[in-house]
């Protein structure tokens, strides 16, 4: 909301410069989001009298003027205006003055120009006699501005303007209003806080508020048929208005806060709303059929044309203002075209009402139509302010539009405002704020914003050392209801910066459980980073079809369900579903980097994926959300260097890193089971018969067509498995030498090496400490169906191994692989 600094000063003498005012507002919770200077300060413009004029010797349309500024030292000024004449009193911009001059082709664009002494066609000119547009007073450039004959020669023009209630220099202060402060959506509301903080009185305009009834009651009747949605409806009538332009000062007020002046009556309703926060509506009384107003909710969906000439569909239950025959306004949102004030209007009905905030909010949301009125009503206007605002507007219409006030008013008030009060304990305030604020200061601050704190007898409150107040709450503060709300106001007005920090604070005597899961995540992240992987963060939202494509039963989330999670209100269809896998995000990142010329990437991400399915892992019914760890690499894995040649990534690079992760988590014996799926080289990973994730290859659809090798781990499962192992138990290191044996086995190619190795480990028994594959060989003397796989075995024990101990184990291994797979020792 824009506050004009000049307008604000009409209600409080604060004596603050603009920067100090900005700081004061920000520090009391009315955060200044922006500050814009309006107009020039006209410093250097003085009132002068034209003593003498002569035609310019070298230019037909220029006049050489001798201008007195009352200093006894007249200036020569060359002027091009057609209306310049001897004897005129005029605003003179002297040399050195900076004016915001409008662009002749685009008058809205203004550039600062500093005046210098110049020669115009051979004649000196020591300043400029100004037109209204050059001073920022209007768009008028027909001629120089001629002042009344009593304008004092030599006086500052800005000061003279101020006496005429005109100031061209102002600041538009953009204040961010939090939802709890409906009282501050007006100049008086902001002025109230300023007045409280600078300890200066709030000065309100004198308004004669009429008694209900009188002649007005004979002119109109008001029936509230929905009293729960409209607590009050005040109507006042002004007759004989002449619709026309508003005076300069009023237009200036409105343009300063970003409103476009329309006509005097509409401008006055807007002015009063920005003055006190009460939205008003002016009806053309001649268009109000039956001189009757009814307030009621629609019973069916219907159409209505608002005063911006748009037809709108109103949902059932919309609160409407109706006359004797039809709807004339959407209550609290916008008036209707059928009854708006036009150039022909003479009699005006002023509406000033209190509508139930949530009803107005629902309507504004349903119509996607937020207006200055709805913005205020949905936050809650002062329930006691309707008559004042209507009377203020009526008074201005009489003054500025030549209207005549019809005596009295109609005040339909089915739900009168009940004054509210709350008990506030000084002790409680101290406990919350953490500092003792003197009793008198508390009372002074509260009184300044319209509260009435009354100290209660101490007897009623045993154990309270500080006073307990019964605080009557101001009607314009619907956010204040409870004791804590009043304590907040005390803290706010006292100033958060005045709350001292304690020298020391205690912490509770309890020990949180160590966060092992988070520790594992941090470890795997830093391990991957030190092994050459770059961590990425990808968007969780993607198109539905793409999400569905990655909900594959091979992948961790696809294990759990078949439906992706969609949002009801996506920003675009490109982001309508939640990711069921981290893979699509990584493929996008790989494609992005390839398109930017990167030949090899290795990425990882740890993040949450979603599937629409009830499971034993569901926190929210019907949805399963798990954390997965994705590794993905593509393109160059090893760069060309002097020690070796370049090569691309393959699945065993990723597998090696996955095995390293499992090893670091002490998960021994993870099995890689060849699996079918949409990707080649796919394997499920299992530990202790539990699914741990998947590794495989895929493609990022781009020009290179290079494979992407990836692994996606069900991190929740991996983490749970790792934590189930508990703390490491030290194992005594054998003092006896180990024995190494190599075995080269010839076996059918169809036998997976992983299976062979697992069987060797099983058959090797306790003495077999380690077994690894050191060679795979095909061809040579081997048949086409065979290959040779060489294993390196290490035996050990806490005693000296004898040859036949090892021989027995090796024999057992050879028998096992021969029986199960037909494997023979290579000759």
């Amino acid at each position, binding site marked *: 909301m824009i506050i004009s600094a000049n307008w604000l000063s009409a209600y409080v003498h604060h004596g603050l410069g603009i920067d100090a005012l900005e700081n004061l507002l920000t520090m009391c*919770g009315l*955060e200044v989001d922006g500050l814009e200077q309006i107009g020039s300060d006209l410093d250097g413009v003085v009132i002068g009298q034209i003593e003498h004029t002569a035609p310019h010797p070298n230019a037909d349309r220029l006049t050489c003027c001798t201008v007195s500024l009352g200093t006894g030292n007249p200036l020569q000024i060359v002027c091009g205006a057609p209306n310049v004449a001897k004897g005129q009193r005029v605003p003179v911009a002297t040399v050195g003055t900076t004016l915001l001059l409008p662009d002749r082709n685009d008058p809205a664009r203004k550039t600062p120009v500093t005046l210098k002494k110049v020669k115009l066609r051979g004649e000196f000119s020591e300043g400029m006699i100004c037109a209204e547009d050059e001073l920022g007073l209007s768009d008028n450039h027909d001629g120089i501005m001629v002042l009344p004959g009593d304008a004092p020669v030599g006086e500052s023009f800005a000061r003279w303007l101020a006496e005429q209630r005109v100031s061209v220099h102002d600041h538009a202060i953009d204040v961010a209003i939090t*939802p*709890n402060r409906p009282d501050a959506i007006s100049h008086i509301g902001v002025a109230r806080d300023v007045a409280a903080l600078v300890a200066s009185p709030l000065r309100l305009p004198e308004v004669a508020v009429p008694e209900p009834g009188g002649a007005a009651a004979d002119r109109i009747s008001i029936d509230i048929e929905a009293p729960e949605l409209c607590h009050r409806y005040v109507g006042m009538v002004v007759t004989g208005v002449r619709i026309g332009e508003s005076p300069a000062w009023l237009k200036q007020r409105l343009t300063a806060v970003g409103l476009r002046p329309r006509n005097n009556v509409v401008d006055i309703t807007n002015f009063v709303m920005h003055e006190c926060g009460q939205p008003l509506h002016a009806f053309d009384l001649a268009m109000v059929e039956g001189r009757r107003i009814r307030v009621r909710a629609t019973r069916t969906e219907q159409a209505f044309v608002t005063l911006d000439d748009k037809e709108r569909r109103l949902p059932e239950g919309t609160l409407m203002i109706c006359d004797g025959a039809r709807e004339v306004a959407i209550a609290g949102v916008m008036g209707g075209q059928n009854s708006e004030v036009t150039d022909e209007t003479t009699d005006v009905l002023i509406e000033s009402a209190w509508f139930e*905030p*949530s009803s107005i*909010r629902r309507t504004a949301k349903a119509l996607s139509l937020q207006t200055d009125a709805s913005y205020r009503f*949905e936050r809650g206007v002062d329930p006691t302010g309707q008559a004042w605002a209507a009377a203020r507007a009526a008074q201005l219409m009489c003054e500025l539009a030549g209207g005549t006030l019809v005596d009295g008013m109609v005040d339909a008030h089915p739900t009168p405002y009940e004054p509210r009060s709350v008990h506030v304990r000084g002790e409680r305030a101290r*406990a*919350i*704020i*953490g*500092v003792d604020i003197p009793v008198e200061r508390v009372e002074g601050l509260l009184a300044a914003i319209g509260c009435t704190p009354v100290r209660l007898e101490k007897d009623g409150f045993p154990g309270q050392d500080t006073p307990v107040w019964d605080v009557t709450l101001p009607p314009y503060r619907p956010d204040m209801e*409870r004791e*804590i709300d009043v304590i*907040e106001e005390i803290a*706010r007005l006292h100033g*958060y*910066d005045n*709350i*001292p*920090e*304690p020298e020391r*604070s205690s912490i*509770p005597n*309890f020990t*949180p459980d160590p*966060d092992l899961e*988070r520790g594992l995540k*941090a470890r795997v*992240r*830093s391990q991957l*980073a030190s092994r*050459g992987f*770059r*961590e*990425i*963060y990808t*968007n*969780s*939202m993607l198109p539905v079809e793409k999400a569905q494509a990655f909900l594959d039963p091979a992948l961790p989330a696809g294990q759990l369900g078949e439906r992706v*999670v969609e*949002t*009801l*209100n*996506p920003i675009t269809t490109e*982001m309508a579903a*939640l990711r069921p896998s981290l893979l699509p995000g990584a493929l996008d*990142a790989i494609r*992005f*980097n390839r398109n930017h010329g*990167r030949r090899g990437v*290795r990425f990882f991400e740890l993040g*949450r994926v*979603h599937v629409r399915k009830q499971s034993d892992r569901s*926190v*929210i019914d019907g949805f399963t*959300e798990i954390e997965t760890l994705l590794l993905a690499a593509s393109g160059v894995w090893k760069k060309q*260097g*002097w020690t070796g040649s370049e090569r691309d990534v393959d699945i065993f690079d990723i597998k090696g890193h996955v095995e390293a992760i499992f090893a670091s988590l002490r998960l021994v014996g993870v099995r890689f089971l060849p699996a079918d799926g949409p990707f080649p080289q796919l394997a499920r990973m299992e530990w202790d018969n539990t699914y741990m994730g998947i590794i495989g290859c895929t493609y990022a659809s781009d020009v290179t067509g290079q494979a992407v090798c990836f692994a996606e781990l069900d991190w929740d499962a991996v983490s749970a498995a790792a934590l189930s192992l508990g703390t490491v138990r030290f194992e005594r290191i054998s003092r006896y030498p180990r024995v190494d044996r190599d075995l080269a086995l010839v076996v059918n190619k169809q036998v997976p090496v992983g299976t062979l190795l697992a069987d060797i480990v099983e058959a090797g028994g306790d003495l077999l400490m380690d077994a690894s594959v050191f060679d795979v060989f095909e061809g040579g003397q081997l048949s086409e169906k065979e290959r040779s796989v060489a294993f390196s075995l290490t035996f050990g024990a806490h005693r000296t191994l004898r040859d036949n101990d090892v021989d027995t184990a090796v024999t057992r291994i050879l028998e096992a692989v021969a029986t199960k797979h037909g494997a023979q020792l290579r000759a």
Partner: protein
Amino acid sequence: MSEDLATLRQEIEDTPLGTEEAIDGFRIRFLSRKQGVITALMKRIPDIAPENRKTYGQDVNALKQRVEARLEEAQQALSSSNAPGTDQTDITLPGRVVPEGSLHPLTQTMDLIVHAFSSYGFQIAEGTEIEDDWHNFTALNFPEDHPARDMQDTFFIEEGKTLLRTHTSPVQIRVMKSQPPPVRVIVPGRVYRNEAISYKSYCLFHQVEGLYVDQGVSMADLKHILHAFARTLFGHDVRMRFRPSFFPFTEPSAEVDIWWPDPDLPGGGRWLEILGCGMVDPNVLEAVDVDPEVYTGYAFGMGVERIAMLRYGIDDIRTLYENDVRFLKQFKS
């Protein structure tokens, strides 16, 4: 010593041992188990007449020791020729490349924040991104049909029931429901806002929120902990200010700014908002069955992106989700 042995002795002393090959040949000639000369001499000991056996044994043994001594000398001489200054290695050749990885700047910033609060005795909790309306809004004192709900534009999954969390505060509710006070917890995580994507806002971001509920907790304590945090993040002479604000779940509420020096600006710098905070609203405590007359508490929350952008001077939030390696590689690990 017999003549044979003396000849052998000469040979042992004279054989040049300058290369690896010569050393191996020497070892095999004298010490090989099958054909070594010394080995053969040793094997003959039982055949020597008993009266000569002792001398013979000593002589052969002396020869063996000489062989071993020469072998050791030669070996040492050979390896010392690989010592610095004597070898041919061009050490200025680059080392074998170890690929460089990196941790995302958001992870690094989040870790920094979480570690700071861990060191002040906060435990860490996480929750799900899909939440219900009660935990995300109702329990946090957001009234139905109230403009406060506009402060957080929400992605809904099921009308009025299930949504993507707009903040990590629902986790605080879950923690308070699961354990009695004192509660001293910090909650990092990903949150979502239905806002147009631009250089300053993205459809999701990360938050770290904190909560402390105990007896005798006041706003002064809140200022203390947040000032400590600001010093950890921005240095010991950081300037900080608290200004009143509004959040439905805290009262009084505040926003915290730090002074960001910038010599190019008219005032020599500007205030930048880094977090929101306040005293836990009694309605929130009541929603989780904690008596607000006995317990009070403070809560605070900050956007990790905002802090990361401030720390690293990043001016477009979208860069954080583009995953351009030229960007990522600047952050190391």
